[in-house]
């Protein structure tokens, strides 16, 4: 009797297990094509962690883009539904987030991640499952191209590091008219190294000289020993291709040490948090390359809509999140399908798309968009649009 009971229980349990498999299978097949309602798009974003500002800004903008698109009838006759997964600003978590979105939530496409490292960590999952992924701000070269091969299904909505480094070098040589530059690199960040190399090459070819190069590690708090070395090499300009969390203290400590040189950087500077980490006074005479400027007239409509919804100004991460989402919508519309391969082909052939900052054309050979960069000057605690630079 007892034995029978055990066997019966085992049988019931295994049946329920089977039933469980059945239901999950059904939903995962239905996700992409289920009629009547939703078209699911995933977003693998930095919602918490060191660069949480990037992810949360993009999330707001993506929500805005979805709202606008749904108000205009959605996509392929369905309403768009976003699934967000938090990668906690960590590459390992980014792989998990992408896996969850693609295998459990069965999304049609993925937006994210914001940083290059987190996008690289997510990209293999997207490639293996043939789901197109577009990173709003992953600027490292190898996000889309590795060993000279373009990665299928992986795209981005921003220009790449060499271009940022090139723009920064040209700006230093031609606009600031300086000849001696120091570089201060985050030694573990692909992003930082990519920008530094491009800056160095372009600055030297503009007859500039790199007088010193120092390194730090993200998470460091004390930069004074390295800054003292930079100071003694007497540069006219210091190039700091890092993220705001370290850039703020670097500029603060440098100013306190009596270094009054111009500091220039890349899009990692673009966060209001920068103004909490260093004072307005200390941030004067700082410039950075960015994707968009909020006070650029061509952004006015987006800024207005964003402000109406969230009662705050969007930043460049929001703008690129918005562009990335809309590029993906356009591709799904052009493909007229939720099939990963068809969306990918549509994205590759996208031409003259009206982005916030001007026209965007996707380069099929690199999956990089061809678009303008802006230079932002920090003036009394405010980001001021200085000039636009087109790719050569």
């Amino acid at each position, binding site marked *: 009797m007892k034995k029978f009971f055990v066997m019966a229980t085992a049988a019931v349990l295994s049946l329920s297990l089977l039933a469980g498999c059945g239901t999950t299978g059904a939903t995962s097949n239905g996700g992409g094509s289920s009629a009547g309602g939703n078209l699911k798009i995933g977003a693998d974003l930095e919602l*918490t962690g060191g660069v949480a500002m990037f992810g949360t800004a993009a999330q707001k903008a993506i929500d805005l883009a979805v709202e606008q698109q749904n108000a205009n009838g959605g996509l392929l006759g369905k309403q768009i539904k976003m699934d967000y997964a938090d990668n906690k600003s960590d590459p390992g978590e980014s792989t998990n987030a992408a896996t969850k979105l693609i295998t459990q939530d069965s999304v049609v496409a993925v937006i994210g991640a914001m940083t290059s490292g987190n996008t690289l960590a997510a990209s293999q999952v997207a490639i293996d499952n043939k789901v197109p992924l577009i990173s709003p701000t992953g600027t490292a070269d190898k996000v889309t191209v590795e060993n000279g091969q373009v990665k299928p299904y992986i795209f981005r909505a921003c220009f790449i590091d060499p271009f940022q480094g090139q723009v920064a070098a040209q700006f230093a040589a031609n606009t600031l008219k300086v000849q001696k530059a120091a570089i201060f690199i985050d030694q573990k960040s692909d992003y930082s190294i990519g920008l530094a190399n491009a800056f160095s090459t372009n600055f030297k070819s503009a007859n500039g000289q790199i007088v010193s190069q120092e390194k730090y590690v993200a*998470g460091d*708090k*004390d930069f*004074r020993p390295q800054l*003292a070395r930079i100071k003694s090499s007497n540069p006219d300009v210091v190039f700091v291709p890092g993220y705001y969390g370290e850039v703020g203290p670097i500029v603060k400590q440098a100013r*306190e040490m*009596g270094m009054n040189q111009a500091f220039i950087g890349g899009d990692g500077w673009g966060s209001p948090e920068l103004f909490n980490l260093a*004072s307005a006074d200390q941030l004067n005479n700082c410039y950075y390359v960015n994707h968009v400027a909020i006070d650029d007239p061509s952004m006015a409509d987006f800024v207005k809509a964003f402000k109406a919804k969230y009662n705050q100004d969007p930043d460049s991460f929001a703008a690129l999140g918005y562009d990335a989402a809309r590029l993906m919508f356009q591709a799904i519309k052009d493909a007229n399908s939720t099939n990963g391969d068809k969306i990918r082909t549509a994205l590759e052939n996208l031409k003259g798309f009206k982005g916030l900052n001007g026209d965007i054309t996707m380069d099929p050979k690199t999956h990089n968009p061809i678009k303008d960069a802006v230079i932002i000057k920090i003036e009394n605690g405010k980001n001021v649009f200085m000039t636009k630079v087109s790719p050569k």
Partner: protein
Amino acid sequence: MHSITELLQQLVYGLSLGSIYALIALGYTMVYGIVKLINFAHGDVMMVGAYMGWIAITVFHFPFFPAILFAMIVAAIAGIIIERTAYKPLRNATRIAALITAIGVSLFLEYGGMLVVGAQMRTYPNVFPETMYNIGGIIFKFGDIVMLVTALVLMLLLHFTVQYTKIGKAMRASSFDMEAALLMGVNVNTTISATFAIGSALAAAAGVLYGIYFNSIDPLMGITPGLKAFVAAVLGGIGIIPGAMVGGLVLGITESLVSGFGASTWRDAVAFLILILVLIIKPSGLFGKNLREKV
């Protein structure tokens, strides 16, 4: 390194960083002196202190001294709770069990902290005037002085407590021979709790100073300074209070000189190389002697 001025400048940076290491190292060394436990959660207690100071300054709008006091008191209570719940039940267990528990407490504080306050970094407001001093080309700010002075005052207070108070005497007695102290009527449990409380309060003071000086804090901020302070405590001779102070300052200065010589990539490697060398050459540390009185 181009000149004597630059060398002196690097020494100033090393001193301010070193006084933080020294304050944290004191907690490591005191706890080790009494219960023979490397309290790996100590760096995270510093993080808790830094957050408490941040709350006191931004939410309650306390000035510097009440804020640092508030952080020290809360951290002292946290230290006692940690000792009572995590370490006391293991007092007679193997030392490795207590060590592993300490790592568990450390992870609990780091990721529990992340859950409560979020993973993003917070910025400390300006507490001190941003006055800069320039003496013969050596630049330092008001914060440098406050940091060094606060650290020195706290170390003197600790020295006084350990040498001239009843609880200090009990601590020294327990450190010397716990069972004999127990037989002499010393309340060993209270003494151990007091040791954790004092050590945690010093770590919290270090946390607040660190937060104010480098104006950003996050839940994982305690890991690196915690490990460096451990190196400092071992360098000075673990269990020996003056050793921890000197070890902290030596380590801070070494780090800033290594970076100053252009080997910033090697800074952390050198710190841990010191640990390895001390353990190979003189495991008892700079101040270590046989049969030395320890707390």
